[in-house]
């Protein structure tokens, strides 16, 4: 029952939009691992993150060929796995009913649904994080160290899915240190830490053995020195909406009204949430999907609150059936989430926000495929930003540079190659096309203006454009979102 809306929301129109930049990179890495000759030149295996998900996807690509659909379905499968785990966590921490409601919330929650439909590392990372949460709960319940070891091992896998999950360690440490009823022997803690360390070492060891150490180091330096990309209001304004306002309210209400019944269960869930939230709120670089691992504990807390509605509720003179109230509250919450998810994944609305992690890019796939079918092989292009460059490289199989990539190594992602002198590159016929897109232009009007100068200076002629229908006061109007210019000296 719970799985049906979960499956539907995760696969309905799943490939209606082309991949976004991050998806292109991860699918491209998987394709390179699988030895795909068309994508290997553009997507080196070692770029930024560990390769657990890309490695698994590469096995699929190896036997079934490269397809975005396969990548997205694999991500969706991890998402459904998270839903199943939510049931087991709810059942373990409270009872079967909480497990059922938590899974129901998880299956329709827009945050999980939207990210699970994309080839992103955050879906698999959240799956492993949720599994680790379950194992930690088993440990807290039984105090058998083997569950702690298993949790450490899975937390290691969480790191190998995406290294930012290392922040969960903070929550685990706080939980173990601040929960009096949970006692851990130092020996067990040392063994658990050793297991974690042994597993996460896979990342640097593979990088070093493959001779790509400098890539990893450069990326780390760049991450540490990156400029802020969002204000501190970003998460408060985005994440509660993505999780679902009723879910957040229910979780908070539950924590308040049921505070007297609170035990280690709530502490575990709260610390699981606070670790990443505190770090990413302070950290300058923010991303929509970075807080996805908190979705699972929030869902469980909300389910706990909904299921705690007493059998009979008296409000002044009104006497209500608690069961009806529980059903009504759950129905409203789930319907809210379901509607929000449907709106977010409908082809007409998906991808219009162009917030990284929220969906595909309208027209990106079509533009790339047009390039692949119509422009000479080995021709080279200049896009506005690296996001569009990744998409063009993925679908168009043409080397695409980005104007906004800084020539200063301290100010750019080290995997991106700058064009130090675009004028010279065009004059020398090393760049034959310019790709302008409205999404990048909206984010960086300065570079958009500069890019257009090159089209004017070098006889730019539009050879192709992709448009979307937008609502205007005079009705629906086609608005070009991607324009490809041919340029020549």
């Amino acid at each position, binding site marked *: *029952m719970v*799985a*049906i809306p979960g*499956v*539907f929301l995760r*696969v*309905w*129109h*799943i*490939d*209606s939009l082309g991949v976004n930049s991050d998806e292109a990179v991860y699918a491209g890495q998987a394709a*390179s*691992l699988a030895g795909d000759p068309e994508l290997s030149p553009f997507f*080196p*295996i*070692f770029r930024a993150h560990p*390769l*657990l998900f890309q*490695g698994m996807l590469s096995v699929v690509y190896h036997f079934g060929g490269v397809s975005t*659909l396969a990548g*997205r379905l694999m991500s969706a499968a991890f998402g459904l796995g998270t839903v199943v785990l939510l049931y087991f966590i709810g059942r373990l921490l409270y009872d079967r009913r909480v497990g059922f409601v938590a899974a129901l919330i998880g299956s329709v929650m827009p945050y999980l649904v939207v990210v699970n439909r994309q080839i992103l590392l955050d879906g698999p990372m959240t799956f492993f994080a949720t599994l680790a949460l379950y194992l930690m709960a088993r440990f807290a319940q039984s105090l058998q160290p*083997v*569950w702690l*070891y*298993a949790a450490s*091992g*899975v937390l*290691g*896998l969480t790191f*190998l899915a995406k290294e930012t999950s290392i922040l969960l360690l903070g929550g685990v440490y706080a939980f173990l240190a601040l929960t009096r009823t949970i006692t851990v022997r130092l020996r067990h803690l040392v063994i658990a830490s050793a*297991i974690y360390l*042994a*597993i996460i070492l*896979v990342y640097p*060891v*593979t990088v070093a*053995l*493959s001779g*790509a150490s400098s890539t990893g180091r450069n990326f780390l330096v760049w991450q540490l020195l990156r400029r802020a990309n969002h204000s501190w209001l970003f998460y408060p304004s985005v994440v509660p909406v993505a999780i679902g306002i009723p879910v957040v309210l229910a979780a908070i209400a539950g924590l308040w009204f049921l505070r007297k019944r609170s035990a280690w269960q709530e502490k575990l869930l709260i610390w699981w949430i606070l670790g990443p939230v505190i770090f990413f709120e302070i950290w300058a670089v923010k991303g929509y999907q970075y807080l996805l691992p908190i979705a699972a504990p929030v869902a469980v807390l909300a389910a706990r609150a909904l299921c705690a509605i007493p059998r009979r509720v008296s409000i002044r003179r009104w006497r209500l059936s608690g069961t009806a109230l529980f059903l009504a509250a759950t129905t409203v919450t789930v319907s809210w989430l379901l509607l929000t998810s449907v709106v977010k994944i409908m082809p007409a609305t998906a991808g219009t926000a162009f917030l990284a992690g929220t969906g595909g890019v309208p027209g990106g796939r*079509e533009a790339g*495929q*047009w390039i692949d*079918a*119509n*422009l*000479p*092989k*080995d*021709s*080279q292009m200049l896009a506005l930003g690296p996001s569009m460059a990744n998409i063009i490289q993925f679908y168009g199989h043409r080397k695409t540079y980005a104007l906004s990539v800084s020539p200063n190594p301290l100010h750019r992602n080290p995997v991106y190659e700058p064009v130090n002198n675009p004028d010279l590159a065009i*004059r*020398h*016929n*090393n760049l*034959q096309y310019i790709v302008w897109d409205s999404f990048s232009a909206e984010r960086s009007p300065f570079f958009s203006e500069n890019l257009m100068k090159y089209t004017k200076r070098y*006889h730019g002629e539009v*050879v192709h454009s992709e448009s979307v229908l937008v609502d205007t006061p005079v009705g629906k109007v086609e608005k070009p979102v991607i324009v490809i210019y*041919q340029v*020549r*000296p």
Partner: protein
Amino acid sequence: MRRRSRLLRGWTALVLLVALQIGLAESAHASPADTSAAARTKTATPIKHFVTLMQENHSFDNYFGTYPGADGIPQGTCMPVEPYDKDGRCVEPFRVTGRPVVDLGHTGNIHKAQYAGGRMNGFISAFAGQRGVGDLAMGYYDDRDIPFYWNVADDYVLFDRAFTSAAGGSIWNHFYWVTGSPGNRKEDALLTKGFDHVPTIFDRLQAAGVDWKFYIQNYDPSVNFRNPGSGDKASQIVWAPVLNYERFLDDPELRSRIVPLDQYFTDLRNNQLPAVSYIVPSGASEHPPGSIQAGSRFVRGLTNALMASSAWDSSAFMWTYDDWGGWYDHVKPPEVDKYGYGFRAPALLVSPYAKKGEVNHTTIDFTSQLKFIENNWDVEPLAKRDAAANDISSAFDFAAPPREPIVPSEQRHVPAPPAPATWIVYTLYGLALAAPVLIMGFSRLGPRLRQQALARGRS
């Protein structure tokens, strides 16, 4: 219960199937079709657009003397500085990069002195009286200097027996290129009265209703044989022989076909590339001491634009050099008449039907291109030379489907990145994935095994 779970499974499968179907639907794009008038003209081969470009002043050995598989500079070559001094100094071919280059002489007299009655040993002595030349004629370029041309040769066709039509300079050779004859039969010079008495390939094409154009880089319409211009402008009427004809200047229809080079790009974009296109450069001609890299980029721009157009699938782009420029070439040119052949010049063909990476050994000259045009569009030969010439069809493979355009790189031998050791990734990540499973397995099996051991101990 079982029935309900079957129903659920059925629903899930249906949802998945529908979603997969939706997900798999992709939009398809077709290449733009070639709708030009030329595409509708009947031809003997699949080539509907023939583009020919004439660059300036390089011998085959000067550009491709070290190209693998071509008839290049023989081992042990050493050109005597003084051919009649048997014990005198000789100069081996050397890479000219880094040395100042001058415009070597390339007149009929220089050709004759270098040819030296067939001994082919006058390449240095021919310049004995000229200051600043020295042994420069023995210089050559290689793929470090002209990587694009070498990459083109790797992917398409390089002719290594392409001779200049006349043992002389630019005027005779350019006239052979468009008329199959030297034009001025007395000397390698233009006629002040023009050349209206010499038929051109454009007359033939015009009469046959075949679309053609003559594209001129930096075209100045005021410069023609009536007003020859001076300085660099003067070369316009040498390199574009049609500007020496009354009829091509005065007939609005014919004149409209002589256009600036920008029109080439416009025509490509608008699906209007004619059947036959002649192109001459201006600043990017590679004429020494001009930059050969600038010339290479110029050619690359022309071929890139063709590759990006709808005309590509039925096109052929050939370029060659109007004379040898005074540079050394080791192949003695065959004598076909009193005008030529002259020394070899580089000639390359880019076409979707060109054989891949072929060094073509067919003996050709500039009139071979005329021969191809005449055969392809079924027009009469212009003169004895083009009637007797080999055409260039041996460089094509019309049995194969047209090749996809590939833009040859401006870099040579880009080192491939080292193949990553993917087995390391699979092995280590696989072990990491297995570790928690093993731990959990142990959590189940461990107590059971301990109990079994205890039981064994008791018994």
